[in-house]
């Protein structure tokens, strides 16, 4: 692909803290390489701001290789920008043209309060995982992988659900800010593995109860989450979550 440089106008959400109201501020960046990642372009902008004595833009990032789930920008009206199955850090500037105006906002949800600028507090996800997204086993020596027979189909499905990186794009993009895709991925992963069986019932009930406590909205099956998920988590996991919840809800004596 041909390399090119571009000049861009950026409209970026600036917000001092959780209490203050934010607004879009306009910035110019010049000579941005089409080979740069979106976050590298932000680094260039922040260097400009620091040199000029301004406050750099706060944004979350960590691995910058699409696996940690930290980056979280709503770019031109879409979670993680215009590419599908892609995180913000793996979005490259060749997605844009010279002269483009790009609008960047933080994830917006009552359950994800803004900390500063583009950083949001996603600890509601942590509390949902703490409510049941784990298995209780004593660690020790690693057992032989083949000592626990798991059907290939179940292993594959569980693995695909486990690909969730917890970035929150599903919540950010959902018209209802529902966390159903995130919760369903963890419930579906563990429900299909033998290690997940002892806590299968309590897990789904507790995780859904915690999700409801965290001010997420209710799922209305628009499937926007699946379309915007960087890891392509399927909404068939939500169907499985519904089945798990129905079965656990009807049979539990908790």
């Amino acid at each position, binding site marked *: 692909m041909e390399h090119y440089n571009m000049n861009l106008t950026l409209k970026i959400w600036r917000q001092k803290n959780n209490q203050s109201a934010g607004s879009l501020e306009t910035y110019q960046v010049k000579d941005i390489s089409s080979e740069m990642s979106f976050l590298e372009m932000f680094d260039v902008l922040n260097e400009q701001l620091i040199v000029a004595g301004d406050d750099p833009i706060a944004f979350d990032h960590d691995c910058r290789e699409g696996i940690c789930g930290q980056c979280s920008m709503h770019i031109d009206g879409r979670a993680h920008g215009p590419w599908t199955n892609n995180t913000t850090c793996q979005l490259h500037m060749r997605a844009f043209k010279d002269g483009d105006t790009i609008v960047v906002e933080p994830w917006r949800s009552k359950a994800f309060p803004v900390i500063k600028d583009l950083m949001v507090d996603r600890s509601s996800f942590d509390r949902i995982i703490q409510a049941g997204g784990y298995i209780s086993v004593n660690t020790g020596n690693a057992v032989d992988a083949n000592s626990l027979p798991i059907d290939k189909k179940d292993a594959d499905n569980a693995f695909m659900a486990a690909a969730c990186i917890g970035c929150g794009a599903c919540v950010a993009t959902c018209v209802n800010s529902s966390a159903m895709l995130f919760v369903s991925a963890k419930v579906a992963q563990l429900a299909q593995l033998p290690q997940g069986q002892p806590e299968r019932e309590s897990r789904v009930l507790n995780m859904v109860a915690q999700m409801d406590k965290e001010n997420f909205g209710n799922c209305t099956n*628009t499937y926007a989450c699946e379309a915007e998920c960087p890891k392509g988590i399927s909404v068939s996991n939500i169907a499985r979550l519904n089945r798990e919840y129905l079965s656990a809800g009807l049979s539990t004596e908790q």
Partner: protein
Amino acid sequence: MTWKLFFTSSIGKKFIMALTGIFLITFLIVHCGINAMIFFNDGGETFNHWGHFMGSNLIVRTMELGLFLFLIMHIVQGLTLWSQNNKSRPVKYVVKNSAANSTWYSRSMGLLGTLILIFLVLHLYHFWTPSRFGGMAGIKALDETSLATYNNEEVHNLYAEMKLVFENNLLIVVVYILGVISLCWHLLHGFQSAFQTFGVNHKRYTPIIKGAGVVYSVVICLLFALMPLAFYLHWVN
């Protein structure tokens, strides 16, 4: 887990929407099937006969109570969800390209449902009220529609009522068609969505369910839309 806890959870609320929705979907098949008998163009004889059956059969009348109960549950739950979901994002996006990831009607079920509700009030006033309370003074919505007699049995002439409502009222015909269009979009999402809620999502069956949902929504709504048109354009007399 108590029933209350189950049905007030976010998933339990979905189950209520799906359960009542599927019941209403089934009801529409019966409603549309019987109304489509006006197209026999026999002066409403077949239609009135079955209309009378539906209005006088004890089992059907009992189910009607269930229908109203489920309808009210669907409306109240739907409006509650709409309001709750709206509050879950207090600060809206400045730019939102939702068309890139979902259909507009799947995101507009609350709005479409409200349009259907407004239409439904008018619809009940036109047909349900006169047919249930037709004999009682003061409650009648429209002019007296005569009783029709078939095989020495007097039945309420709903056919004449339809004729009265639609024949020379272009505005009413347009409102009905707009109501049916709202219903069509609502069903296009609602049909397949109900199955997803109940956990039916399968490589083999989901495409069939989605296809059936499109056929169902289009056929039912097309038939419903043709009814006021048929009277207005004198296709049936």
